[in-house]
């Protein structure tokens, strides 16, 4: 084909002008498997130019407590969906076995290995990435009081400890996700 057949240049629409979108995610769970949905979605939102606020409350508070955030656990107990990560098969361990000593440790290690194999960072490193990308982290005042911790005990990327009313005010017009 000759040059004359060339179509006009197409420029992708990256939608820069529409990025007044704000996403706020409330992280209320402290188990390892429930920490990741907010981290993955929040990180993706930042990569799409969306303003992001993460609010850590109740058990989710452990995601930003310096002494606990690297040691979140995953328990298969009570999770009837739990099966081994193999395709085309449903290999399960009876629920009665799940609460036995060592099961949580084993399941946690398996999950961490799987995440690492997919190059998904541990919680702390993931939060580093989110903060570097402009995401803001907020700690719940009530959870801080209940846990008897202050800013010195929290992950360094946390902006502040705020109360519920602050959070509601701050997220006016934002899209909200409760995890």
């Amino acid at each position: 084909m000759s040059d004359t057949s060339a179509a006009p240049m197409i420029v992708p629409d990256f939608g820069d002008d529409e990025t007044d979108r704000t996403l706020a995610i409330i992280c209320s769970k402290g188990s390892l498997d429930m920490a990741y949905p907010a981290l993955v979605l929040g990180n993706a939102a930042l990569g799409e130019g969306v303003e992001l606020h993460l609010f850590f409350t109740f058990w989710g508070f452990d995601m930003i407590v310096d002494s606990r955030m690297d040691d979140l656990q995953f328990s298969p107990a009570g999770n009837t969906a739990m099966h081994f990560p193999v395709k085309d098969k449903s290999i399960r361990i009876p629920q009665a076995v799940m609460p036995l000593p060592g099961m949580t440790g084993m399941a946690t290690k398996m999950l961490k290995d799987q995440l690492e194999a997919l190059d998904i960072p541990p919680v702390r490193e993931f939060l580093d990435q989110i903060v570097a990308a402009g995401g803001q982290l907020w700690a719940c005042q009530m959870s801080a009081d209940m846990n008897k911790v202050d800013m010195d005990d929290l992950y360094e990327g946390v902006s502040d400890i705020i109360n519920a009313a602050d959070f509601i005010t701050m997220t006016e017009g934002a899209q909200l996700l409760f995890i």
Partner: protein
Amino acid sequence: MPVTSIAGHDVHVNDEGFLTEYDEWNRDIAEVLAANIGIEMTDRHWAVVDFLREDFKAKGETATTRRVQNVGGIPTKEQFALFPKKPGRKMSYVAGLPKPKGCV
């Protein structure tokens, strides 16, 4: 796939305007692609683009922002400064590569 002319070269692009043929890309084209989205290429922009090109050649897929930091050595914060708002998409567009597939 449409064919379009960029910097005097006929290249294949997809419906969004991303180049679809790895070997049709060159630095002159990258300058034009960057200008299209309001970016003036500097040495640091080239560092990102060169890493993405080499990494794609080795791995067969476009590096995510996380990989550009951990393997390419360009911090996330800087990637957002160089390719504002949507670094993953913009970097791959300028580098003549598909958008990253990975979630992280």
